[in-house]
């Protein structure tokens, strides 16, 4: 028997990502790389109208083209296609119209599928598409949210009698009391423009039939949810559907969906008895993959003259688009509890009105509800600071929850378990050089005399955010009318050779689960990092799971993994005691090995126990052969990462161009398993948040056409457009989690957008510019300056 030297903990180690070689080279199983024998290709004819009746479709010519197997319309599929699911009917009286995967008699957004061609190759399918004739009778588009609610508005769904989908209110404390007596009340409107999620890998589906069973490969974040939902909507028994998410190239929420194309692939495979495949083009994805954000926020804050917040009122209009998809109505509500942010206040009210429009449906996009909430509170805090003549950081200090006050129950009813806003902010200010930048700003402004003489203006923006991760305690989801639980599952199998298979119900699409789960299992079991294999993303291999979104994988799935590992250790302990010829209660598991308490040697390793459990030649009485365990964990609380982001911009006032000069992010995501992965998440998140602040917007014309329909018109920032990010961390472990982790998938996106816009507003303050709508394009910034100059001119 040998002694294993105690391995250093894997937690906190920047282990190189196990998955990178295959993901970066592309030598892997992307869905579009899969070609089962006999695969047929599907292409969809999509509506060029935002709203129209379909009065006739002629597919005769298309059907007769070489290579074409069949051409089908919504009418052909009407009897079997069902309605796409919405799992979150947020109120009992919600308007929930049918959502046929393929339009039957009416189209309600540009891009909605009206027919499909199935052909032997993808080119033939596209050629035939051009030969289908559709007669449309145009109906009025519904584009603007406020106009949609007018009494005489055209209706997206005539049967519903209204474009109002739901109204969801929340109130806490004496809101009118707080506002009536407050010396300072600010009322602001912010617009969260529609965004187009643009994962690197487009959506792709392959469905392979085998008798009455089906294997559906999809570029999805949620294979488990897709399986349940497709079984419910198509009537195919759940046990006959296997869903596999092979390697998936990004999602950001856009693949947290059960899509029309997935449902139709399944139906076509069943109808034709052959594998079918569809991969979206980028332009097709822009029109049909769900969009994000799309809200008008009316926000009011009441405060004392010293800046203490008394109350907050939030009134949202949320653009549902044409139909309710998986969590369309619930997405804005994920922010409902987060508008108070890190601040103490007496009263809070929130109301969200969901509105139908003839546009692509909206749904979750990185942060889902929380970036919108954080933007609103962090922007209005800056406006309040400006109103009161206070430094924005000082205003925040006067209102935030102090680190001695945790756990803290917020006005919205959440219990923040831990945090240290002082520590994160102090560190961020130091790294940023806040004081000296403020000095430079003031020196430049006074030296320039008047703002008008300065071609560039320095602006400083702060964002002190928190968010809720780890979706979610099932009881909370139930109370919010969500259709499923928020638990997660893990299984751990010790193999006879001492290697480990870990099964997780979470489904990575770039996050690095193979790496982090290996690190955790290695630590928990005392095995080598390299000896752990992580399995996921296949409902047959990982039969239980709730998948990956909302920064939940490490928080909920990690807790399940720790629990399963603990159970393996407990199952191993009597076997180890037997091998060590010691009493079970005398055997401890430390440093990755079992030993008799108090004696450094002899010890036995997990691998030795695993072999003994496998051979089962000499196990203690009553011990089951083999060594494995599983666990399904329901989180007791959300986790609450927080942090302070600071952004300095130089605004060219002659052209309106905004250049980010420096950016500092100090995040507190609790205990960090892999700092390299956390940095990657923060970098990508900040980039995406900057995208919303400066570049991205899904623009529709008055007819409801998507104008920004390609990447030439919908601008995404690349590395060349972004500054170096300075990142650091403070660490307040989550108290409700065995590892103390909090989640990091969305933090950067949530924090960065208001930091950038606050900086722009700060830069333009000398001109009297209060706000610039997002995205803060050069033209918008320039126009804001022009408008303020005219205003000032009139005042004089």
């Amino acid at each position: 028997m040998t002694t294993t030297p105690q391995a250093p903990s894997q937690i906190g180690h920047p282990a190189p990502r196990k998955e990178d070689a295959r993901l970066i080279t592309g030598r892997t199983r992307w869905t579009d790389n899969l070609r089962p024998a006999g695969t047929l290709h599907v292409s969809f004819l999509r509506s060029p109208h935002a709203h129209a009746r379909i009065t006739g479709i002629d597919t005769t010519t298309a059907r007769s083209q070489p290579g074409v197997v069949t051409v089908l319309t919504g009418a052909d599929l009407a009897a079997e296609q069902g309605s796409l699911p919405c799992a979150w009917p947020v109120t009992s009286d919600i308007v929930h119209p049918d959502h046929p995967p393929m339009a039957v008699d009416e189209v309600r957004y540009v891009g909605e599928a009206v027919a499909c061609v199935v052909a032997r190759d993808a080119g033939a399918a596209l050629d035939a598409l051009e030969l289908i004739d559709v007669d449309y009778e145009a109906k009025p588009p519904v584009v603007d949210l406020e106009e949609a609610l007018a009494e005489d508005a055209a209706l997206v769904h005539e049967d519903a009698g209204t474009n109002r989908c739901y109204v969801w209110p929340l109130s806490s404390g004496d809101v009118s009391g707080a506002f009536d007596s407050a010396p300072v009340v600010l009322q602001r409107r912010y617009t969260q423009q529609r965004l187009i999620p643009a994962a690197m890998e487009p959506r792709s589906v392959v469905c392979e039939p085998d008798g009455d069973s089906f294997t559906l490969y999809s570029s999805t974040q949620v294979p488990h949810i897709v399986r349940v939902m497709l079984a419910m909507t198509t009537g195919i028994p759940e046990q006959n559907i296997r869903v596999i998410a092979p390697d998936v190239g990004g999602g950001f929420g856009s693949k947290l969906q059960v899509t029309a194309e997935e449902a139709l692939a399944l139906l076509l495979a069943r109808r034709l008895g052959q594998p079918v495949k569809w991969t979206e083009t980028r332009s097709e994805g822009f029109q049909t993959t769900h969009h994000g954000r799309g809200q008008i926020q009316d926000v009011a804050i009441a405060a004392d003259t010293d800046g203490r917040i008394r109350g907050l009122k939030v009134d949202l209009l949320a653009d549902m688009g044409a139909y309710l998809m998986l969590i369309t109505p619930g997405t804005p509500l994920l922010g409902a509890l987060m508008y108070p942010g890190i601040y103490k206040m007496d009263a809070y009210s929130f109301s969200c009105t969901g509105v139908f429009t003839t546009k692509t449906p909206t749904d979750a996009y990185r942060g889902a509800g929380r970036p919108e909430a954080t933007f609103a509170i962090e922007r209005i805090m800056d406006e309040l600071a400006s109103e009161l003549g206070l430094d924005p950081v000082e205003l925040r200090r006067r209102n935030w929850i102090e680190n001695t006050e945790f756990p803290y129950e917020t006005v919205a009813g959440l219990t923040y378990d831990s945090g240290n806003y002082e520590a994160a902010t102090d560190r961020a200010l130091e790294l940023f050089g806040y004081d000296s930048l403020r000095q430079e700003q003031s020196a430049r402004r006074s030296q320039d005399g008047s703002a008008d003489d300065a071609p560039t203006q320095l602006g400083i923006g702060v964002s002190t955010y928190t968010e809720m991760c780890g979706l979610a305690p099932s009881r909370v989801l139930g109370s919010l009318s969500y259709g499923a639980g928020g638990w997660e599952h893990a299984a751990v199998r010790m193999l006879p050779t001492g290697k480990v298979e870990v099964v997780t119900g979470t489904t990575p699409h770039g996050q690095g689960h193979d790496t982090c789960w290996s690190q955790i299992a290695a630590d928990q079991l005392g095995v080598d990092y390299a000896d752990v294999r992580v399995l996921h993303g296949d409902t047959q291999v990982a039969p239980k799971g709730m998948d990956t979104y909302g920064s939940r994988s490490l928080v909920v799935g990690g807790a399940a993994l720790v629990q399963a590992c603990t159970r393996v250790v407990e199952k191993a302990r009597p076997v180890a005691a037997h091998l060590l010829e010691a009493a079970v209660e005398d055997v401890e598991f430390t440093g990755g090995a079992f030993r008799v308490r108090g004696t450094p040697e002899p010890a036995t390793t997990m691998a030795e126990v695993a072999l003994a459990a496998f051979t089962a030649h000499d196990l203690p009485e009553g011990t089951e052969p083999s060594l494995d365990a599983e666990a399904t964990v329901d989180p007791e609380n959300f986790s609450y990462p927080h942090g302070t982001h600071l952004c300095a911009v130089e605004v060219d006032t002659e052209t309106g161009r905004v250049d980010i000069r420096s950016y500092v992010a100090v995040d507190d995501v609790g205990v960090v398993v892999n700092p390299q992965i956390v940095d990657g998440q923060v970098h990508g998140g900040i980039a995406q948040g900057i995208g919303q602040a400066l570049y991205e917007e899904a623009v529709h014309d008055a007819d409801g056409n998507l104008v920004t329909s390609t990447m030439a018109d919908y601008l995404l920032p690349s590395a060349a457009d972004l500054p170096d990010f300075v990142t650091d961390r403070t660490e307040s472990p989550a108290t409700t989690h065995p590892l103390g982790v909090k989640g990091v998938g969305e933090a950067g996106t949530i924090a960065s957008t208001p930091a950038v816009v606050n900086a722009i507003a700060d830069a333009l303050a000398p001109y009297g510019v209060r706000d610039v709508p997002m995205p803060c394009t050069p033209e918008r910034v320039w126009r804001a300056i022009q408008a303020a100059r005219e205003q000032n001119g009139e005042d004089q």
Partner: protein
Amino acid sequence: MIPSTFTYEQPADVSTALEIMSRAAPDPQEADGAVTVLAGGQSLVPLLRFRLAAPDVVVDLGGCAELQGIRDMGDHLWIGAMTTHHDVIRDPLVAEHCGLLAQATRTVADPAVRHRGTIGGSLAHADPAGDLPAVALTLNAEMIIDGPDGQREVPAGEFFLDYLTSALEPDELLTGIRIPKWPGWTFHYEKFNRTAQAWALVGVAAAVQRVHGDLAEVRVGLTNMGATPVRARGVEQAARGIPAQRRAVTEASRQASSGTEPPSDTHAQSDYRRHLAQVLTGRAISRAAGL
């Protein structure tokens, strides 16, 4: 997306290319669109994939070695139409005699595009939002055009006729570009785009001949200020002989948008483009003049 079916030809020389083109387009008036030239493909391939172009024949000039390279012809440079942006940027003759071209080419798209895209392809595409047409105009480039009836030369000022429309007939090829040498001139290309890879909202090509303390002569070409690249002649006149000082340059640059008809689109409204043209022209001339 997958392009419509087409015949792909890769001739090894210009005469074969012209032969294929005249065969594919026997009557140029009727056969418009029947044959398309692939000269790097950085604009054409997206058009094919969007099915916005559906030619019967695509003639790839990538095999014509005679269309590549940059030569010193005494008072001017000859640049083969199929010379890549990357090669233009690195060429010492270009740097020495018409640095504006290298400077503007460096701002084209991204490295991948610059390794495949060609100067001839860019110019023949005649996109007013492209960077090189305005540069060709500013530098008085001559387009060398080969066709069934032999060779002709068209000055840049007469080459760009309309949006995506040049003086090239359907059976003609742009085979080379002559660019005069500009001894004693200094240059700057000022590009204003929203992201590094985006087209210019407005671009300004400036060439300046500075004599002692004055700007003896100034030439300015504007990108994306109309259906074709345009010269800012108002600025050129106003700036002739002015002192090499920022204030004077700024004053002269106020003429930059006069006579232009810039587009309004998703990225910028026309009045903003006019404003940008003035600001950027001032900056471009100032930088070209070392101010």
